């Protein structure tokens, strides 16, 4: 990947504007299976079988970005999308196994390591907070296989600063 430019990006959410400098890299290949995961400062996702946190701004973002495709999730994750309902959502306990190329998956409480070869992009939602955890996002993003494509910050409904990172598989 090569650096193209460092440009200021104005990101608006609920009439609030954040300006953050982004480093834009060229991306290789087509987007295939895309994973969404929300993590805390220690890459934790869940504690005692329950998500660490949630935010309606994050749900709105995910639904907006996946509206032209299929968004897979398990029944536990589906509960936070009941209001409002979304047509692109497919619910299945084995969603990571059954999702295909160009599908999206939202992972909250299960391992993704075994599907790493199937994933070409990871959208990491960082809460910017420290929570207790006993379930972690288990793909190592620092082993050289993954590259950070973009990083943006936005204000959530109950979180002051949420960071959205796009990681691509080289």
């Amino acid at each position, binding site marked *: 990947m090569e650096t193209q430019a460092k440009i200021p990006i104005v990101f608006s959410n609920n009439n609030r504007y954040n300006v953050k400098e982004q480093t834009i890299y060229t991306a290789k290949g087509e987007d295939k299976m895309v994973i969404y995961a929300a993590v805390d400062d220690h890459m934790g996702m869940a*504690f005692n079988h*329950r998500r660490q*946190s949630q935010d309606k701004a994050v749900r709105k973002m995910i639904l907006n970005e996946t509206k032209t495709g299929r968004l897979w999730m398990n029944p536990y994750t589906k509960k936070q999308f009941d209001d409002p309902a979304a047509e692109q959502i497919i619910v299945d306990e084995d969603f990571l196994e059954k999702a295909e190329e160009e599908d999206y998956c939202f992972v909250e409480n299960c391992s993704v390591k075994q599907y790493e070869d199937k994933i070409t992009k990871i959208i990491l939602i960082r809460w910017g*907070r*420290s*929570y*207790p955890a006993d379930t972690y996002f288990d793909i190592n993003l620092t082993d050289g296989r993954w590259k950070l494509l973009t990083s943006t910050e936005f204000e959530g*409904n109950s979180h*002051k600063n949420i960071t959205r990172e796009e990681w691509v598989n080289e």
Partner: protein
Amino acid sequence: MNRSMKTKHFKTLMISFLFVLFCGLVPMGCGSQRGVVDQGASVSTERSMTEETERRLETEVQETETEQESEATEIDTAGTAAKGSALKQTMPSTEVTVSVADIPAYNGSPYVAVNDNVPQFLETDLSTSSYEYYSDLDSLGRCGVVYACIGTDLMPTEERGSIGSVKPTGWHTVKYDTVDGKYLYNRCHLIGYQLSGENANVKNLITGTRYLNVDGMLPFENMVADYVKETNHHVMYRVTPVFDGDNLLASGVQIEAESVEDNGEGILFNVYCYNVQPNVAIDYATGDSSLAGGDVAAQNDAAADASVDTAAASYKGAKSDSNAASDSNADQADESSKSSGSTDQTADNGQTSDNSGTSAQNPSGGSDTLMVYKSATGDKYHSINNCGRMNPNKATQITEAEAIRQGLGKCSKCW
């Protein structure tokens, strides 16, 4: 009957009538005053009240305005921005007693699940109305169990103020280079400020290590706070400081939480957080401490209490949405805590220690109150039960003096 007798009889009748009338009026006056007292929700300014009634109402107002002055255990409902509404609820029905013997020995994780991570609330404890309860201090001045039903109306709307005036039991102002922020101890809120807005309440503050405050308790408070803000639900939250015998320093705290409106689907946990600090040996009887590894010990700096308070604020407590700086500092502290393994190595640099933090010395050379770990086999005693040269599951605790009497030597790795 002659005229004088009639007059006399008439006067007697008048006096009797007036007497009866007087006796009838006085009870009616007392009953109306009692009614005002029974209503109780607001202070009455009627001047016709008895002195005793006025004193009682003044006491109720004082108890409402200043929790620290109250001797009784009360629960205040926070229905308005001005906390301390005079509505009283019955006390929660459950007092949970957790002893140090029930808790597994510290094994490198800042917290451990209790009761399969399931809290032990009764149905009657749960409420969709916010409330809070703080036990009186015991005879040694130590905090007891505290409860709160956390809702958005209980949360603070302003930044936390100073708490430097409070000296919980076991308090020492002591610094170590290996501790993030230097200060070993924080004034540690049992129910975090970001949840209840309780700040300098002596019933809500214990002496806790930085590790307990930031690595142990803070993540759970963050999770509960963000859940409440996002969902506008309530979370039943109970914190029990655990003291071993007459120790002034808590061995740890138990935290239980359950979200109410969704029956625990959002928030459910029951954990014990250890009041320890990696690489620091602590005497829980007094709060004295020493740096493991024989390094130069603590700088005791009584004049630095204000900066300790500042450090505590930056790590935990001032967690309102407007205080991004303290969140950032806490995050930096978390990162530093993650590298505590490396600091263990750097701390063991062979410098001599004056052990100024240790308590009274036994003539044999060891402390009678400082607890150390002994392995099932081996000829060393350790400051922690998982220093890598022993099986933590087979570790037992004895005093340092006893360890020396048994011929054990100090482990060069963890001291």
